């Protein structure tokens, strides 16, 4: 299971329409800005976490995979505890944790094609202003699709530079990564065009 990708299950969370789930994400993002009460935010996080077993997704594996994010949250909390106050750190960390849990629940239970349809419908009124809803939603879908591919490319570059003893040099990693990603982008563009997709 990859955290950014849909996992097929027969659950009430999966069955909820993508538009509703996106609206809930948006509403949650707004609501958590209106309270500084750590107990309320803690309860909100607990509700979000209940969503995972409800969606028949193993919470323990999700927490395990989200470890890098949790480390970032811990550093964020520690920085606030040191430089502002523990209370501020608690509130801000809980807000981030809620949003992360909410976003993960959305991507794990909603097919990208369903999110694309919602995005296309939502962006349609902006089409006269020059925004192409199909292209925008495709960019969104491809971002999710290529996260694992780019992670693999990064690992290949890192191992290759490690073999040359240069894996601690950021430029030795970033330059080949950028070149490979741009080359890949060109080939993907050709492939989409070859498939006759009219955008």
């Amino acid at each position: 299971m990859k955290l950014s990708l849909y996992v097929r299950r027969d659950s009430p969370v999966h069955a909820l329409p993508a538009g509703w789930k996106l609206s809930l994400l948006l509403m949650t993002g707004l609501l958590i800005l209106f309270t500084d009460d750590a107990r309320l935010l803690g309860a909100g996080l607990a509700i979000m976490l209940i969503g995972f077993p409800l969606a028949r997704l193993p919470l323990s594996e999700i927490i395990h995979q989200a470890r890098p994010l949790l480390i970032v949250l811990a550093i964020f909390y520690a920085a606030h505890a040191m430089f502002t106050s523990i209370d501020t750190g608690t509130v801000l960390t809980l807000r981030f944790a809620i949003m992360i849990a909410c976003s993960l629940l959305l991507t794990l239970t909603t097919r990208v094609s369903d999110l694309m349809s919602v995005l296309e419908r939502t962006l349609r009124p902006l089409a006269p202003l020059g925004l192409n809803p199909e292209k925008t939603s495709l960019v969104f879908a491809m971002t999710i699709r290529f996260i694992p591919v780019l992670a693999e490319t990064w690992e290949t570059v890192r191992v290759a530079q490690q073999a040359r003893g240069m894996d601690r040099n950021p430029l030795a990693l970033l330059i080949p990564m950028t070149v490979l990603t741009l080359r890949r982008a060109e080939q993907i563009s050709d492939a989409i065009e070859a498939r006759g997709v009219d955008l």
Partner: protein
Amino acid sequence: MIAFETVSVTAGDRTVLADINLTLRERRIAVIGANGSGKSTFARLINGLRRPSTGAVTVDGLDTVKAAKEVRRQVGFLFQDPDNQIVMPLVEEDLRFSLKALKLSPADEDERIERILDSYGLTHLRYQPSHSLSGGEKQLLALANSMLREPRYLVLDEPTTLLDLKNRKRVMTAIEELSQTVICVTHDLEIAATADRVLVLADGRIAFDGAATDAIAAYREMAE
């Protein structure tokens, strides 16, 4: 029928292809040649991914530049790296994406997707994330994507280069069974040997055009 009429392609000062005049009617055509000989450009000209600098390429009378959209419906294209060809996170979503341009009803889309998955032995992978597929499965999915729109021609650009022996065999068996006209750009002389006609490209020109055995012998001679 695919026709090249005095086709040249230049990139800056460099001539990629020069003065190509050809008519392709055979069912299986292979294009071989050294790296940088213009093979991939030749392939991309057939479905309008590259424009000729001079001359014209036509597919069943349709100009690949002027009628690019219609040509792409008739000419499927399989790239070397399937990872660059699969754009959606799930296998089913990727197939559905290919059908978008045809504007079929959901029931027709489902029917076509079921049929194509079944014919390539991919039914069990329908709801799997595309990144989790093996190299061979990804290439078969890319092939299924190309065939989903029922083209009359299929252009393959080194389709087995990144595959191991087992997956190479799997993909080649699937390609051999196609009823479509197949133009395969390859370094694999074993694949070229099965073609009805083989073109050998060297420095952007057709250095040899003929039967597989003679073409491969000529290519080997050139490489020495």
